[in-house]
């Protein structure tokens, strides 16, 4: 058995290059069992690439990824899924010819090997998961009839149906309006409450602050800052990465005045 001190997922100097450019460059961090960890960063920071490395879609060029103490770097995606790591795609990838219910059921049919189901049970799992993410009423709809927020829900539902221990969510809030983001946050909380560790990749800062105890900021493939979201977001390097040097200077000036008065 694992000791309590051992992280569920550990990245050690993970590196992925595309034609010499280090999209992810020596990234090291840990994910503790049961937490919601946010990974944020400006466009092109390497967030999705990092997620692709963990889920096996990309092969890492350097470093190691350890799942419950065992290296999983270099394993194909289906093996990683069977270990209990589920993921969504930023650009949703539903199985278009299937109904909403079938999409979720396929997740339950495959997925983590500990939770593999037969056909009948897979559809029962699908119904439970659809209720959890709020798609129960649309279970028999074809995917083409779903709105964008509902497609994002379906993406999460399919991943949750694989019964993961760790769920990697790639910008599930992107493109949603404020009301929809609140609903999506509720959904992530509901999934987390079932005992799933969540690694949440987001571009929208508000999401991270609202739901994560801990956040990691990526920039140009490096870890820029790590800690409580409120603290991390006030970090000058983070502001600079997001909003540019000039804005950071102006902010520094304002803060200086604040403390003087």
């Amino acid at each position, binding site marked *: 058995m694992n000791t309590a001190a051992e992280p569920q997922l550990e990245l050690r100097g993970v590196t992925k290059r595309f034609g010499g450019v280090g999209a992810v460059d020596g990234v090291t961090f840990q994910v503790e069992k049961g937490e919601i960890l946010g990974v944020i960063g400006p466009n092109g920071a390497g967030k999705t690439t990092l997620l692709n490395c963990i889920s096996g879609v990309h092969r890492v060029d350097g470093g190691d990824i350890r799942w419950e103490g065992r290296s999983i770097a270099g394993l194909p995606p289906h093996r*990683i899924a069977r270990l209990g790591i589920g993921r969504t795609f930023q650009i949703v*990838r539903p199985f278009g*010819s299937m109904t909403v219910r079938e999409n979720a059921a396929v*997740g339950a049919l*495959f997925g983590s090997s500990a939770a593999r189901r037969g*056909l009948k049970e897979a559809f029962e799992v699908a119904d439970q998961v659809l209720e959890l993410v709020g798609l129960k009423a649309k279970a028999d709809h074809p995917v083409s009839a779903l709105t964008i927020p509902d497609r994002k829900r379906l993406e999460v539902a399919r991943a949750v149906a*694989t019964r993961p221990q760790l769920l990697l969510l790639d910008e599930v809030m992107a493109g949603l309006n404020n009301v929809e983001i609140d609903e999506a946050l509720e959904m992530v909380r509901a999934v987390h409450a079932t005992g799933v560790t969540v690694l949440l990749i987001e571009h929208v800062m508000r999401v991270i602050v609202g739901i994560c105890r801990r956040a990691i900021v990526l920039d140009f493939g490096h870890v820029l800052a790590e800690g409580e979201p409120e603290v991390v977001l006030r970090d000058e390097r983070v502001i600079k990465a997001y909003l540019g040097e000039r804005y950071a200077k102006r902010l520094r000036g304002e803060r200086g005045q604040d403390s003087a008065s």
Partner: protein
Amino acid sequence: MIATADSQRRWRRIFLIVGGIVAAYALLAPLTSLDAAQAAGIPLLTDKFWFRIATYVVMFVVLATAWNIIGGITGYAAFGNVAFFGIGAYTTGMLIAKAKWPFLVALPLAPVLAALFAALVGLPLLRLRGHYFAVASLGVGVAVGELVQNIDYNGQPVFGGASGLFLPIYAVGHRGLFFFYLMCGAAAIAIAVTWWVLRSRFGYGLIAIRENEDAAAVIGVNTTAYKVAAFALAAALTGLAGGIFSQWNVFINQDNTFPIEYNVQMILMALLGGTGTVFGPAAGAVLLQLLIQFLGGSLPISFDLPFVSSEARPIVAQVILGLLLVVVVIFVPRGVIDFFGGRTRLSLSYLRRSLRDTSL
């Protein structure tokens, strides 16, 4: 047009009854040629000539249904499946003609060898996606036929070479009837396998691969293994048809066991009937093979095409098939089977909607 549940059921019942009667007639009519039936005074409902055409039709039911497993359900447009037909034919043919095996012992090895070959070429080929796979598989289909014809050992062609391979005639009463029913057995196996696939974890994995391969992989589908298995399964069924063909036709060569046009025909049949469905490819095969025979002038009910000399007929037949392919892909993308379930009806608005869906 979405019909109500009631009329849906009615249409499905009508389809089942009509389909059942047609299938029963096709299966039972040949029996009237048996001496016992003749002695009992039952009128002859068929003749030898029809056996041959009917056996060809059923053979294409096997080929199209097999192609559907890799092309329709898995979404990998295999353009070289005729290689498996030829391998099946030559496996059985060589075992009978050279090793003197009895036919029914040699036949089971046809699907086995075809499947092994598919697994072997599938491992590298199925890494290619979309058009790349289609072109590469076409290459394999052509290459295998050339190899079989041209492999020599000590100056002697191993597989009969350009002059082909003659098999001893299989000693069985009512040969035409025997091979017709044998081919029907192969078709029944192909359809039953498809039915099982579409209701299994395996089938859901294949459809997931077709719809989005990356998404399938990250939910835990071993995409490589699944694709190779689907390819090998399609190859086994195609090889089985080839094995039956070799003994039925008695003579095999490159032309009749590796015809490139079979590649196109089996795909067209599956498309016409409805890819990804259980009965679609079979329906498409019956319709299209009868049309091919009709256009080719092989049916007794054929008539002269206007403005076409008899020599130009095969060419015109090819042109008509090509046009049909275009029309089917654009206007009936889900195949004619779509009209039989009772969910949709053939109408102008259906064609208009299809045109909109299939154009950019």
